[in-house]
């Protein structure tokens, strides 16, 4: 490993480049381990930065170590212990030394020992950031900051909030972790399904925040979708459970339609009208086998079923080839696992495609008796669509107007106005 030291600008540049690459690939893992060793988020973050600046200096002289990750963990830990000792001299808080210094194991061996420990640390970090005793906003912010390594500014921009507000949210979350003593651990087997579900919810929320922000002009904000997929892929490597496969597949299959989903002016293009040659085949090819694996396990949950629905769409080369009967059946299965009026609405739409608009309309109108459905724009839009397909243009126009009353996203409103216009055209004939 030790190459003769050549103090040229080229050498320094290539080392910097190499360290940058290591930061990209290793910094979150090093952080995850440092949090365990030091028992404190802020201390660990500081130690991480100290370790990387030490690496810049020392590696230039001594060359790259055999195991950069272990070197960084070790350096970070010693820097932190130094810091704690200095503080202790002033404050007399010797007890602060407990977790950092009381480990007599050699950190070098400790970090090198096995990849399993590293993987466990990464899981610990994910589970603590998505702990259900933190608010959902805090879980999202903390996960993006600590697990994905985004800056506070980047996260603030993604959630359309100010950096100070976001920083405060993260500070409070860390304070709660410390004060309420939320442990840095992988939940035990009994709690695992519930805690894993919470993690998956956070990842899907991130994805959806990127895929369809709650309000505003743009339909897709790709940064967060990419982070969510990356995070889920990482979780899948660490914990290859059926629902993790299901969620990863669902996001890949939904994201594969990203470019086809909107037209040049940013308007929504419905699934049936999308140019399927624009669908990302690479993502589809990664997603489909995951769906099969998840469903085969028989321990799958709602994400896997939704992924299976997305897979049926992905497998149809042309919209007419879509197996709507299968989709209707999958929605029925989904309604059993996770009953909700929205799922029932989707089931009704699938039935309208499989058996005709009259069958769908009947189900949608039953659903519209429920109060929650009456203010849901997509319920009115689905009813309007069935009426239009049946040729009841006057009634369809009324229903589209009702949908417009409740739709908030501008592209959705443009879409509904265009359909309303079509009804008016038919009526003029």
């Amino acid at each position, binding site marked *: 490993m030790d190459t003769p030291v050549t103090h040229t600008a080229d050498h320094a540049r290539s080392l910097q480049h190499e360290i940058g690459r290591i930061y990209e690939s290793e910094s979150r893992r090093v952080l995850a381990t440092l949090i365990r060793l030091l028992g404190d988020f802020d201390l660990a973050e500081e130690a991480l930065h100290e370790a990387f600046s030490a690496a810049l200096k020392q590696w230039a002289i001594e060359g790259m170590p055999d195991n950069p990750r272990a070197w960084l963990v070790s350096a970070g830990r010693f820097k932190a212990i130094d810091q704690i000792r200095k503080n202790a001299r002033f404050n007399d808080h010797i007890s602060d030394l407990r977790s950092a210094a009381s480990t007599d194991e050699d950190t070098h061996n400790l970090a090198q020992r096995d990849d399993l420990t590293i993987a466990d640390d990464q899981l610990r970090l994910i589970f603590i950031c998505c702990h259900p005793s933190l608010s959902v906003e805090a879980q999202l912010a903390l996960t993006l900051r600590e697990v994905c390594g985004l800056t506070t500014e980047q996260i603030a921009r993604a959630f359309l909030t100010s950096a100070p507000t976001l920083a405060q949210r993260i*500070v409070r979350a860390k304070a709660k972790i410390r*004060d309420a003593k939320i*442990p840095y651990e992988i939940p035990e087997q009994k709690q695992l399904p519930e805690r894993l579900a919470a993690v998956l919810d956070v990842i899907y929320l991130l994805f959806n925040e990127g895929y369809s922000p709650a309000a505003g002009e743009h339909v897709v904000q790709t940064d967060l979708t990419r982070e969510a997929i990356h995070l889920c892929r990482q979780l899948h490597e660490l914990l290859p459970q059926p629902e993790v496969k299901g969620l990863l597949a669902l996001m890949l299959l939904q994201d594969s339609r990203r470019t086809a989903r909107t037209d040049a002016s940013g308007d929504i293009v419905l699934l049936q009208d999308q140019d399927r040659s624009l669908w990302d085949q690479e993502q589809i090819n990664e997603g489909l086998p995951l769906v099969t694996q998840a469903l085969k396990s028989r321990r799958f949950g709602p994400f896997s079923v939704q992924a299976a629905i997305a897979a049926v769409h992905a497998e149809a080369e042309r919209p007419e080839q879509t197996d709507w009967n299968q989709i209707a059946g999958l929605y029925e299965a989904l309604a059993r696992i996770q009953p909700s009026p929205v799922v029932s609405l989707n089931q009704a739409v699938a039935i309208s495609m499989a058996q005709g608009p009259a069958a769908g309309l009947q189900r949608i109108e039953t659903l519209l008796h429920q109060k929650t459905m009456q203010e849901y724009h997509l319920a009115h839009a689905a009813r309007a669509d069935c009426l239009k397909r049946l040729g009841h243009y006057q009634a369809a126009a009324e229903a589209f107007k009702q949908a417009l009353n409740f739709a908030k996203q501008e592209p959705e409103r443009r879409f509904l106005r265009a359909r309303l216009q079509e009804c008016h055209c038919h009526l003029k004939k």
Partner: protein
Amino acid sequence: MNYLALVYYDENKMSEMSQPEWDSLNRECMACVENLQQSGHYIAGNPLLPTHTATTVRVRDDKVSTMDGPFAETKEQLAGYYLLEARDLNEAIQLAGKIPPARYGSIEVRPVRALRESDNDGRNSKNPA
């Protein structure tokens, strides 16, 4: 670490319970206390009489004022407490999940802070750092 598990439920709803149902819930609570004692997690605990028995006391300008009722009108009312010893919040949450009234109302789990001569913490909720 010590955690206080505060038991809240809707008193009106609970008062609709039949006597045998109510008795059986109380027996369940006694069994719960016994289990917590055996596992070494129990420090103290008590059920409370309903909020119509509550009096709220304040001191302003050295004058004591007393008022009828609990300090705030809420949908669910404080009905009792358990003081627990737990390894961390995860264990405290697990223990709280075994408190029988959790099925009817809610259990708020709060870490207990130490009272010291000086350097007390936990006062500033706006800037916990």
